[in-house]
């Protein structure tokens, strides 16, 4: 209540953005909000680079022949697309930007538990990113983002070690961020903010952080072993010198499958926020959504072998991994049902973030269900390494992670920048992204069942029509993704000033000014309400909000 009143004063208040304009006030900041903004700009650059590679891929695949690029160039393009998107965009996208900015505010803390370590993880991300970019510019990598051995260790004549070094360093950024989140959530919750009053966004990040801390070291070791074999010719993965190529796949997927949950869990957290808040009611089955995140994080560590059903691992291992994969599908289904049920008897509004949230449910539904196709071991034999897999994981990673990221970015944009974006253009771009995405990737399911292998620069001519659909869809998707860059940037200059609580929501982040002061709250808040509690006595002044709506 006090905080809401404080924002009524008209003079310009000191906030985290205007208390220092020098470059050093950004580079040496310990403020989680400034670090999050620097992350936001950085991941956007990597997203742009990855997106340009995607455009190149779709252009090459417009025709069956390998004609636009040399095959070797094409191999590098899809490799670079994967490396940029997975390691430098999707994994940090939500945790390092929205999570970094919002978690301390949502739990009523002044900052993360280790502000200097937070800055260190940004520097590690930059260092890793620059080294990897350098490797790509020097000549690039042609191993696929999966770095399968012995191709990557013995046969590839490209910058494997340099690119790997960048990813290795970037991994520590991920580990430190996870560590910071866990300690912060344990020790820095405001008085009254019990575990079961935490917003589900925070629960999702807790689960994500567990995966970051436990999984990332394994991929770090794996990259190190690849480098050792490549440089010193010590036989680890290459059978010609006594190694085992399947061992690499086990190690790689032991991290890289859980990494999928690093990408999707935070997005699910965003969706829980959006669905509850834009239905203006408590989320259906709070505890079930919270614990399903933990269940996904735990079971996610036990299913890596489903990437290897045809690799030559034992049949019995394959069956066990297929069974566990089916089990891990259940908590995801629980979430979808609970989100849908939350809409029941709500007061549903359709602002841009909610459009993204509803779009997420549709796309994640298809992404999840096609995961069952691939988890079913007999069907996987036909489908693995085809475009069916490509379509499936883009439905989960783009349809899931990117839509959640964009939904969250729009949702918290007024809080982060103090400016309102154009609602009209927001809705247009949300719809373009949804339509363009489906047109791009749905045909790829059919291509996959037809048997078109992934990572092919050339394909049989009878598959061209579906590929044209896909490329056409990609251009719509591209427009849908470029638009937010334009109107969000413009909003910084011409956008209306954002009130502290534009949607009149009960969360803690809406009880401080927009943008928040450096210490987040003028005085430590005391939490007396449950998560998503829209009752009248919860400090939400409906009459005043309506008046402001009219005057604005």
């Amino acid at each position, binding site marked *: 209540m006090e905080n809401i009143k404080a924002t009524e004063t008209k003079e310009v208040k000191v906030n985290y953005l205007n208390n220092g304009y020098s470059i050093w006030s950004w580079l040496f900041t310990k403020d989680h909000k400034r670090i999050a903004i620097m992350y936001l700009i950085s991941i956007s650059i990597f997203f742009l680079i990855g997106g340009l590679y995607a455009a190149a891929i779709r252009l090459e695949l417009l025709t069956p022949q390998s004609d636009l690029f040399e095959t070797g160039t094409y191999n590098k393009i899809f490799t670079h697309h994967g490396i940029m998107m997975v390691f430098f965009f999707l994994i940090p996208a939500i945790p390092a930007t929205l999570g970094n900015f919002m978690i301390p505010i949502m739990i009523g803390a002044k900052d993360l538990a280790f502000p200097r370590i937070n800055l260190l993880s940004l520097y590690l991300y930059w260092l890793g990113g620059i080294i990897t970019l350098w490797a790509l510019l020097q000549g690039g990598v042609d191993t696929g983002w999966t770095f399968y051995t012995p191709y990557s260790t013995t046969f590839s004549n490209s910058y494997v070690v340099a690119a790997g070094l960048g990813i290795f360093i970037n991994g520590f950024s991920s580990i430190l961020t996870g560590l910071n989140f866990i300690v912060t959530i344990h020790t820095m919750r405001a008085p009254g903010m019990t575990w079961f009053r935490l917003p589900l966004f925070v629960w999702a990040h807790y689960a994500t952080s567990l995966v970051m801390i436990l999984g990332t070291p394994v991929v770090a070791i794996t990259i190190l072993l690849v480098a050792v074999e490549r440089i010193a010719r010590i036989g680890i993965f290459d059978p010609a010198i006594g190694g085992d190529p399947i061992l690499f796949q086990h190690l790689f997927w032991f991290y890289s499958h859980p990494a999928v949950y690093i990408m999707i869990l935070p997005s699910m957290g965003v969706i829980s926020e959006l669905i509850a808040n834009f239905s203006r009611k408590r989320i259906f089955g709070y505890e079930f959504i919270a614990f399903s995140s933990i269940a996904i994080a735990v079971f996610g560590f036990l299913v890596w072998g489903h990437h290897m059903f045809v690799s030559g691992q034992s049949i019995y291992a394959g069956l066990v991994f297929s069974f566990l994969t*089916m089990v891990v599908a259940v908590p995801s289904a629980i979430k979808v049902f609970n989100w849908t049920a939350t809409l029941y008897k709500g007061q549903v509004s359709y602002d841009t973030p909610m459009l993204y949230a509803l779009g997420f449910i549709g796309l994640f539904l298809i992404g999840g*269900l096609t995961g069952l196709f691939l988890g079913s071991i007999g069907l996987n034999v036909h489908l693995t390494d085809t475009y069916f897999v490509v379509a499936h994981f883009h439905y989960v990673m783009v349809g899931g992670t990117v839509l959640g990221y964009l939904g969250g970015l729009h949702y918290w944009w007024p809080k982060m920048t103090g400016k309102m974006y154009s609602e009209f253009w927001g809705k247009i771009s949300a719809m373009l992204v949804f339509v363009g995405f489906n047109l791009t990737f749905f045909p790829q399911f*059919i291509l996959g069942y037809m048997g078109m292998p992934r990572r092919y620069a*050339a394909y049989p001519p009878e*598959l061209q029509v*579906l590929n044209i659909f896909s490329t056409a869809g990609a251009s719509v998707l591209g427009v849908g993704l470029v638009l937010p860059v334009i109107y969000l940037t413009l909003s910084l200059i011409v956008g209306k000033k954002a009130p502290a609580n534009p949607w009149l929501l009960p969360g803690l982040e809406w009880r401080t000014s927009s943008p928040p002061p450096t210490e987040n709250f003028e005085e430590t808040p005391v939490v007396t309400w449950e998560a998503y509690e829209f009752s009248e006595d919860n400090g939400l002044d409906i009459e005043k909000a309506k008046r402001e709506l009219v005057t604005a």
Partner: protein
Amino acid sequence: MQQQSYSWVPLFPERASSFAWEVDALYFYLVAISVFFTVLIVATIFYFAIRYREKEKFKSGAEIHGSLLLETTWTAIPFVIAMTIFLGGAIVYYNQYRPPKDAMEIYVVGKQWMWKMQHPTGQREINELHVPVNTKIKLIMTTEDVLHDFYIPAFRTKADVVPGRYTTLWFEATKPGKYHLYCAEYCGLNHSGMGGWIYVMEKEDYERWLAGNVSNQTPAEAGKELFEAKLGCASCHQQNDQGRGPTLVGLFGKEVKLANGQKVIANEEYIRNSILNPQGQIVEGYQPIMPTFKGQVTEEQLVALVAYIKSLGTQPQSNTMTASN
């Protein structure tokens, strides 16, 4: 020879192997489940979103926290459905990856970026494989360099080809025709060019094709020549137990007792390992004196040696030799 035919927008691949219909049945079962749940959820969302759209700005929704009954229901039902999908997949997989005992064996060696095949009667082919219809065929595959994957979409099966070991793939083609062969595991520069065609022929056509491509040596004959002359294996591994090494007559498929007390089945993998790394598995009662032949024999020569040792008499093979090593 009929060409693979496609409609303008192809939606479904040709079906030409004995277990392809099982894969397709599983696929349609999953499509049905997916359509059902997608329609259910999307229709519910649309209904709720319209029925409960915001009536008045900033009005709160109803106070509903959850329902244990609903949570239990929508945990149990997806779990049960997921288990049916698992079981269906497990059965199909079992049929795909358990090679029948009486299959005709064809050796496949992959290398960047071609497939080399050899028929039991000795004919060699590159990037093309002619097989008779309605005949069980087992491919025994390895590679000279990196990972590859032998994939025939019309047969709904594939298997990785792994350096340093043998993997197997089997099928029974049910329809004469010409079908795509792809490499499905990324293998470098010309990955998308590492493909070819599988020609499924009527049995008499296949016999005629074989007769028109007379080979000088079957794999077993080539192996015999290596064994007896070029590599000199026969000086120690004799027809009886008098040699410095154990006799290999009747070895294949038998249980072998090792010096360290372990027991192993003498399958393709065991023979291959014993040639390349003889010190790894010493047969009980023999000295570790055999030199390694690593670097001296090619993958194709290894395949020939394995074929020859198999031809020296076999025990009924157990089912352990499948997709695993």
